[in-house]
């Protein structure tokens, strides 16, 4: 699944570790989502949407 996580994070000048801490996951998870090797669960996707104040369908795209 394609996503805009890397660009959203970069726009806020957050590191992967910063974002991981805000979401309560490991940095490896953030990296795996950004490189599209792992699709997050629905609760995590909603958390990401809330954090960036965007609906999840604008961040994630099938």
């Amino acid at each position, binding site marked *: 699944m394609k996503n805009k996580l890397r660009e959203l994070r970069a726009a806020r000048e957050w590191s992967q570790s910063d974002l991981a*801490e805000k979401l*309560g*996951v*490991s*940095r*490896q*998870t953030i990296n795996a989502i950004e490189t599209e090797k792992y699709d*997050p669960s629905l609760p*995590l996707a909603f958390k990401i949407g809330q954090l960036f104040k965007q609906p999840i369908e604008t961040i994630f795209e099938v």
Partner: protein
Amino acid sequence: MDCRPTLREQFKFNIWLAVTTATYLVTLFLVQHFKEWSPLVQVSVTLLPVLPGLMYLGKGLRLLRQMDELQRRIQLEAWFFAAIGTVIVSAVINVFNAHGLVWETFPHGLEIGGTYLLMFFLWTLGVAFSTRRYQ
């Protein structure tokens, strides 16, 4: 935040693996050298490693609950790989033995110790493969 278990937590988890292994080796020695013991005592002694094994299981479940979703997936894939791999290897050895092609090393299959060690080895491989896959 790094959701991976800390070194201290991993140590507390793995110390039970060491205790289980040590208990297994001691009970193996006792059962082989004290054959005059009654079957009830022999069974009780043989099953002693189950107790630290249960502690290992409990610590493992606690660690699993602390992991984030990707870490849990990695563990799930690794355990699945280890379980299926162990079943396949055990089945192959049993088929060889059933047809008279008895391997001297495994005349009665892998037994408890061999099964445990094989599963641990395959789990280690599984964790390495899965971790690499998501890097």
